[in-house]
């Protein structure tokens, strides 16, 4: 067992810790242990970060199993390997999971023990997804996130929680079904499941129709997760009905698997063929961007506004990828991380708000500023980050993504700019609505502001958002090598 495996499986410590507690322990005690359990992967992830910074390489490899056919051997090994992109996502995961445990303190009253058990299994799955260096292992962990997420939505969610959980299950199940077909189809051709090995094999293969077919399958599979517009309806439900602490993870990390998968499986394995899909991706990205933005404009529920904002922001990732150049990819990756932080912050605040007012309906909220200035201040800051205010992470990502698109597909870039304007409109509309105006409802009158420990998650997330905004290189220098490998293989 190397360091990476220890890291990936470190949530098991929390799982065991929680399982050892008696069934009657009070929620407080359970939460305390869950927090300890959450800090372990967080600490390990930063140790991994510093070691990676020193060595610039961290990998693990064991032979796992293989199949003998008539003429050759199909090999599946247990391979973990880090690169900058993966490391950034891993750090994001451990951070958001820990903050989500903090956020869940007031949210999860029913059966907290089970909640944290599922949460740690989910974390294990997510860490595995981002650390694995082969398709099979990726899929292995990818599917592992399915059951815990199903329960986290279905048992602890709001109103339509079970319908949402089944919807989540079916959509994502079908997505992984397509993914599995594509992975096996590639695996049989290449004889190895390793990303690098597949890439080498594909560069020598001429059958372009086959490659495009596989890439389209990957696009559909990760399009469910990202989500790409016609496949998005499950994700809006999850945003609205899952408990906010879970949505932090869902919007902050799980959706990012879609972006990561698209880059790793598309650009990472088919560097020569992938650019052929630039226009398709750009069209899909535009649709996502504009469709999400327009719908976010007319929602009367804060959670729905943020849900469609996520759809819209995913469009920017697609546009960035469609640029098919360093700037575009870098923008897409920055947007991935940045949106993870921003949406986690937004839903953390939504959780705090629900706790106090038990509603997120825009018509029932107003004048938050008068009783809870700090909370509404954070809301405003998060919204400004989301709409891409310079000095915050959203701006850097959008800027680079559009830089990439304008270089290759200026028309799409020009149309996309409309989306940016709309983003400002819907974010400000929603936030101004709840913050200012006449104070509404009794709950708001005696509402308490963010205090003590509650400030911590919001503060930490905002700090990272600003750090990336002011000093983009803090993230950028991690990504350099990854970007070079993505772009290097492209012909011309």
């Amino acid at each position, binding site marked *: 067992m190397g360091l990476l495996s220890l890291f990936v499986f470190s949530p098991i410590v929390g799982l065991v810790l929680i399982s050892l507690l008696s*069934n009657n322990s009070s929620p407080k005690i359970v939460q305390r242990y869950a927090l300890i359990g959450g800090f372990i992967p967080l600490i390990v992830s930063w140790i991994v970060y510093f070691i990676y910074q020193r060595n610039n390489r961290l990998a693990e490899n064991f032979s*796992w*199993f*293989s*199949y*003998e*056919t*008539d003429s050759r051997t*199909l090999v599946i090994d247990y391979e973990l390997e880090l690169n900058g992109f993966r490391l950034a996502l891993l750090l994001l995961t451990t951070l958001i999971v820990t903050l989500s445990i903090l956020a869940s303190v007031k949210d999860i009253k029913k059966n907290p023990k*089970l909640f944290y058990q599922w949460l740690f299994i989910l974390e294990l799955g997510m860490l595995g997804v981002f650390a694995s260096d082969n398709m099979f292992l990726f*899929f*292995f*962990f990818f*599917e*592992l996130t*399915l*059951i815990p997420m*199903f*329960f986290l939505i*279905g*048992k602890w969610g709001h109103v339509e929680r*079970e319908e949402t959980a*089944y919807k989540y*299950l*079916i959509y994502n*199940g*079908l997505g992984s*079904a*397509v993914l*599995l*077909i594509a992975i*096996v*189809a590639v*695996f*049989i051709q290449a004889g190895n499941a390793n990303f690098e090995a597949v890439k080498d094999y594909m560069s020598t293969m001429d059958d372009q129709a086959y490659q495009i077919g596989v890439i389209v399958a990957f696009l559909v599979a990760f399009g469910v997760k990202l989500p790409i517009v016609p496949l998005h309806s499950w994700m809006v439900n999850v945003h609205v009905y899952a408990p906010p602490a879970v949505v932090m993870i869902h919007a902050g990390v799980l959706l990012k698997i879609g972006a990561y998968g698209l880059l790793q499986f598309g650009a990472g394995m088919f560097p020569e063929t992938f650019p052929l899909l630039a226009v398709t991706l750009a069209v899909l990205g535009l649709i996502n961007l504009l469709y999400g933005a327009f719908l976010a404009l007319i929602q009367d529920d804060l959670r729905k506004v943020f849900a469609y904002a996520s759809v819209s922001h995913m469009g920017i990732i697609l546009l960035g990828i469609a640029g098919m150049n360093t700037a575009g990819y870098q923008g897409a990756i920055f947007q991935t991380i940045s949106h993870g932080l921003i949406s986690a912050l937004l839903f953390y605040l939504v959780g705090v708000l629900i706790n106090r007012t038990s509603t997120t309906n825009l018509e029932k909220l107003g004048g938050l500023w008068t009783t809870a200035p700090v909370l509404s201040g954070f809301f405003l800051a998060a919204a400004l980050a989301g709409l891409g205010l310079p000095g915050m992470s959203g701006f850097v990502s959008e800027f680079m993504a559009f830089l990439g698109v304008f270089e290759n597909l200026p028309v799409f870039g020009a149309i996309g700019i409309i989306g940016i304007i709309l983003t400002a409109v819907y974010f400000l509309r929603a936030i101004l609505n709840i913050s200012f105006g006449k104070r509404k409802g009794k709950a708001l009158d005696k509402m308490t502001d963010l205090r003590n420990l509650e400030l911590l998650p919001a503060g930490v997330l905002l700090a990272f958002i600003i750090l990336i905004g002011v000093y983009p290189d803090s993230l950028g220098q991690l990504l350099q090598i990854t970007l070079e490998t993505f772009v290097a293989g492209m012909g011309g």
Partner: protein
Amino acid sequence: MDLETLLSFKWSIMAPEFTILITGVIVSLQDLFYGNKRLSSWLSILGVLLAIAFLSTQYQHESVSILYDTYIFDEVTFFFKIILLTGTLLILLMTSPSWDEETERVRGDFHYLLLAALLGGMIVVSSGDVITLYAGLELLSISSYIMVGIRKYNRNANEGAMKYIITGSLASAVTLFGLSYIYGLTGTTNLFDISREMSAIDTQLEPLAILGFVITFVGLTFKISTVPFHMWTPDVYQGASTPVAAFLSVVSKAAGFILIARMLIIAFTAEPGLEQGTVYEYGVGLIAVLAALTMIVGNTVALRQRNMKRLFAYSSIAHAGYLLIPLAALTSFSLETIWFYLLAYMLMNIGAFAVLHVLIQNHANEDMSIFSGLYHRSPVLTVMMTIFLASLAGIPGTAGFIGKFNIFLGALSADPARYVLAGIMVATTVISYVYYFNILVQMYSRPAEKHANLQVPAITWVTVGFCTLGTVLFGIFPNLPLQFFNW
């Protein structure tokens, strides 16, 4: 046949079969004279353990053929017998403590029937001749009919047994009819001779050969409960006691699959890698269609079931559909795939049935609600059941996932690649998520009907624990069984 030839056979290779036979006789005599059911149970467990011990000495033994090629021993028979014996052992362990009133009221007991059925299955596995194959099949079938009907005070059991025996004998007759064509064409009952004759068959006679194959195959599909001969399954499972249902869905089905695989691979010269027989080429279309229909019907009808035994009946139909795919897409690792899947299926299904057995006895009810609130009543059992269900649904980390992955890999790497079948398989797998997850929701999210902690007999933990261990171990280290298979 004089004494000398008789003694010249290497009888020791049949030691597992003899052990089962002798145990069966002892258990039936014991039942006749003492009628101690507990003793029967322990004797049977001991007998099967002994048979497993004998079998394990034959690991990596060279291929042997005795009794004029009617009994063969090769690696395939060895590996599939492991499944039959282990499966029966687990089922015996699961039944042993369960002496409810109903079993007490019934005279005679099912232990020697179970052993007889097991013996039938083992003979099916080892047969090199159509006659012994059929004899083994009938031994398996007739014992199963009685086992289903043994709860004679239960209406469902009577109905199930009646349906089972009528459709079952019809299927046997059909099989025999089909075999008669094959005999007529080749003039031999030996599988290897049939294979040789079939490969050199006159093109004019080919339609007849195809007809013979189709009729035989259709008759045999009854045992593995594939569409259209699946109708009996839910009724019979519902009528049979839970262990018997487990036996039918695992051991009896495994024997059926081996039978079909043997007929297909030996008799119709569909030797993987070699040139495939014409009959196989025609037959394979039929198998593919049946596989697709079985997966679709099994998985969609299961969605509507509330009775747990009926749900697992449809689930077992669906799994039979998955298992037909390696036969429709023969590659050099088809047998390995079938074997691994049956192994995984044995572990996860018997585990699930064992949990089901405990709950059905606790509630005297078979509705899905018996699972409600199980997490609060017995967390450990719930986690184990979750693992079985995850495995049945094909979630990674479990043997069921690796099993499905193997089938999938085989389907896509076969020549021609079976994209449609593979597509149907993953799509129906997603459908199956819904009904397996329904049970999970019951266990974790619904309030319990009974609040007392669930009492689980100690020996049931052995079965459930063994199955959990196997399911997880083979799911994470699939190389263990796969290397074991390629000795």
